[in-house]
């Protein structure tokens, strides 16, 4: 039986660019911004990095999809660099590659960097993309909000929840994230909103309104990882380690076979349980101090609370409205503003979440600092509720 990744790898340094509409910044500019912060934080030199993983989810940023953009932008010294891409789980995938390389002993110090430049397309929302030669011929004409909006119809039907009540809980999710994002200088959206604003905003995809959608942002985030021994040798104290890295990928069951009712994310449930097992977590509600979940849309965050076992099934609306996941609540969610307000540059998001964990554990989170945070869960969901990739990372103090 494999022993898992728990405590085998620690974070040596992290960096994150300002997220937002970075009209004047190229992908390379964003990468350098995150990387320079990360390198300074790690206290090493560029030449000490032995391997790299590059995550970018949408554009190839070079001639074809490859690791070249990272190596070129950072002028890395011809080290092995791998491009990874797994939709919205891309950032976590880059991190996983680097962590596994260190854990395997293949190298001592590895870099993971994710970037996305979404604001070069000329319109709001994610770029309209092909879904592949075959799928384009029969897939529904869906946008990202359109695909996730369906969670609301499934959830309402299953739990008999009134439209207005669900919309109010969805609004609460966004109001909370805006309040958190307002305290984060690197966040894309930094204005607080009211529940009325969220409820009355025009529909993007029923019942998802404008304020139920996350920011579409440019940005980059990056981590340098190593072993606990090397980190200590380099003079690091207050170590932050990887407790679990899990991935669950749909196999067609939800879309083509099972009685999945569209009210939850099957892969999240599977990945969460695997991650708890890997991290040795028996009672997530008591042990997890904070979460950064894939709040691409407010309804996704709401159902994810149940999928992560942080709310009872059918009770997320109650718990959300009760403030359980607010900054001062039972288990704060998106203390940095989340995808909603920090922003969602696809390839960077998983690493951005870990960046916030890292700051919180080191007491460097400024106005949004939580007291005594020990264990954080990060969740990404790439794709669509009926067919997706879920990644979960659990990060904590190395004790």
């Amino acid at each position, binding site marked *: 039986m494999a022993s898992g990744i728990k405590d085998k790898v620690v974070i040596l340094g992290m960096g994150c660019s300002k997220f937002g509409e970075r009209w004047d910044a190229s992908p390379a500019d964003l990468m350098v911004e995150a990387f320079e912060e990360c390198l300074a934080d790690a206290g090493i030199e560029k030449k000490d990095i032995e391997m790299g993983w590059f995550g970018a989810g949408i554009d190839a940023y070079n001639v074809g999809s490859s690791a070249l953009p990272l190596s070129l932008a950072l002028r890395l010294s011809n080290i092995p660099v791998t491009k990874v891409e797994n939709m919205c789980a891309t950032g976590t995938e880059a991190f996983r590659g680097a962590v596994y390389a260190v854990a395997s002993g293949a190298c001592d110090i590895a870099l993971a960097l994710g970037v996305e430049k979404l604001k070069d397309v000329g319109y709001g929302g994610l770029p309209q*993309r092909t879904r592949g030669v075959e799928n384009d011929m029969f897939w*529904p004409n*869906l946008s990202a909000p359109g*695909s996730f909006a*369906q969670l609301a119809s499934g959830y309402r*039907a299953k739990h008999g929840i009134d439209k207005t009540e669900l919309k109010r809980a969805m609004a609460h999710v966004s109001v909370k994230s805006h309040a958190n994002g307002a305290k984060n200088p690197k966040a894309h959206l930094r204005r607080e909103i009211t529940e009325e604003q969220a409820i009355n905003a025009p529909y993007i995809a029923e019942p998802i309104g404008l304020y139920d959608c996350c920011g579409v942002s440019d940005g980059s985030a990056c981590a340098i990882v190593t072993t606990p021994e090397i980190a200590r040798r380099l003079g690091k104290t207050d170590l932050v380690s990887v407790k679990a890295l899990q991935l669950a990928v749909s*196999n067609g*069951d939800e879309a083509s076979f099972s009685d999945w009712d569209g009210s939850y994310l099957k892969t999240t449930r599977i990945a969460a349980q695997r991650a708890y097992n890997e991290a040795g977590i028996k009672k997530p509600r008591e042990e997890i101090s904070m979460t950064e979940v894939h709040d691409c849309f407010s309804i996704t965050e709401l159902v994810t609370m149940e999928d992560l076992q942080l709310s009872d099934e059918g009770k997320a609306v109650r718990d959300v409205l009760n403030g359980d996941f607010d900054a001062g609540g039972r288990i704060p969610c998106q203390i940095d503003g989340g995808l909603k307000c920090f922003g969602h540059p696809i390839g960077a998001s998983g690493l951005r979440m870990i960046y916030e964990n890292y700051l919180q554990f080191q007491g460097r989170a400024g106005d949004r600092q939580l007291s005594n945070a020990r264990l954080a869960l990060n969740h990404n969901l790439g794709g669509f509720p009926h067919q997706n990739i879920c990644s979960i990372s659990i990060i904590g103090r190395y004790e």
Partner: protein
Amino acid sequence: MFGITAYGAYIPRSRLSRAAIADANDWFDASLRGLAKGERSVCNWDEDTITMAVEAGQDCLSLLDAGSVGALYLASTTLPFLDRQNSVVVSQALNLGDRLRTMDVSASQRAATSALITMLEAGGPDKGSAMLVASEHRRSKCGSRAEMLWGDGAAALGVGNEGVIAEYLGCETYVTDFVDHYRGEDSTLDYEWEERWIRDEGYLKSVPLAATRLLEKAGLKAGDIAHFVLASDQAKTPSAVAKALGVATEAVVDNRIASMGVSGAAHPILMLTAALEAAKPGDLIMLAGFGQGTDVVLFRATDQINKRRPKTGFAGALERRRTDENYNRFLSFNNLVERETGKRGELDKQSYLAAMYRKRDLLTGFIGGKCRECGTIQIPKENYCVNPDCGALHSQDDYPMSALPGRVKTWTADRLTFDWNPPAYFGLVEFDGGGRMMMDFTEVEAGSIETGVAVSLHFRIRQFDNQRGFRKYFWKATPSGQ
């Protein structure tokens, strides 16, 4: 006995109020106000001659075994493809198999009656039944008389020996190069000559001539005709022709200009389906088709006429309607204005023909798979059975699913994605008996979709590849009863 054995009809649900057309255009031509009565049928953006033909064909197949169809003729002057046999697309969407004769018949308003005569004169095909589908989606100029009076629609007929509802008695054709209107190869719009000349020198001379010849040949009298079908966008002309011929006024089949408009080459067959629904056993039916001469065909209703009724039929198709007052949307759907699509509408829609051919069973036939090992029904059909407890390799038999009823599991109305008629509705559909698919919806009226709502499937345009003049089709779900 040989003759018509089945029929089916399709009229687009959307009915544009003629007052809306007049409101937009009478500043230019005040005479349009005089025509502004009732409504006309209008194709949705995702409907065309092929999709309407499939709908009418499906209705006809509610009376006919698809396996018995040995020939399919598609008649229209608005075929989406000039070189790609449109009838083959229709036959594959109807799952008629790969052993049948197919043919497109075009280039005249009597295309459908001429095709029908050919089928009737050829006798029964090897497999027993032949099927005619007539379908028309004509474009017309903004603010024209044609825009006011025309409509879109399709009809289908089965011809054979089994279950004859109208016995074939004979036909006659009078041919003359009478050019009342035309559409050249470089134009998508018609050019018409004067209405009065068309009536006096066209209808009133040509139709009586052919009809009289046929009646003489058949030994029948005009006064015996109980149903006289003559499609025309001239409201009073069919009665005038009937009078000249000696056909009783009450035998003239109303062309439903007020409720749907005249559907071009499809209209004679569509009006014949209306006549078949009204006919009593023994009734004599004359069908006339006018265009560079006249086709006339005689039928006599059998005692089966009231027993064999299609699922929807003409009355059902006419009744299934949705009022539309939006003239601008009509112009947009018919490409009569250059419209802003937003940047999302700019995505390249390349048509990958090799992949399309490989996927034809799914795309055109909506054929899924049924696992021989565990019985699981699944669509798309893939290599391994999707049931995790089975997972058998290459274990699925073809399983046609286009006729299966389904229910909505999840849904939304998407205003972000590009759609010609936003919001775009789609969701997860679960089929009765098994199988599920995330798919587009069409013909959704606001407020009509909810989890659990019953849906039926319809063959529709999925995407236009305007850059290369291609269009792709697939199946969409529609709330039942809409």
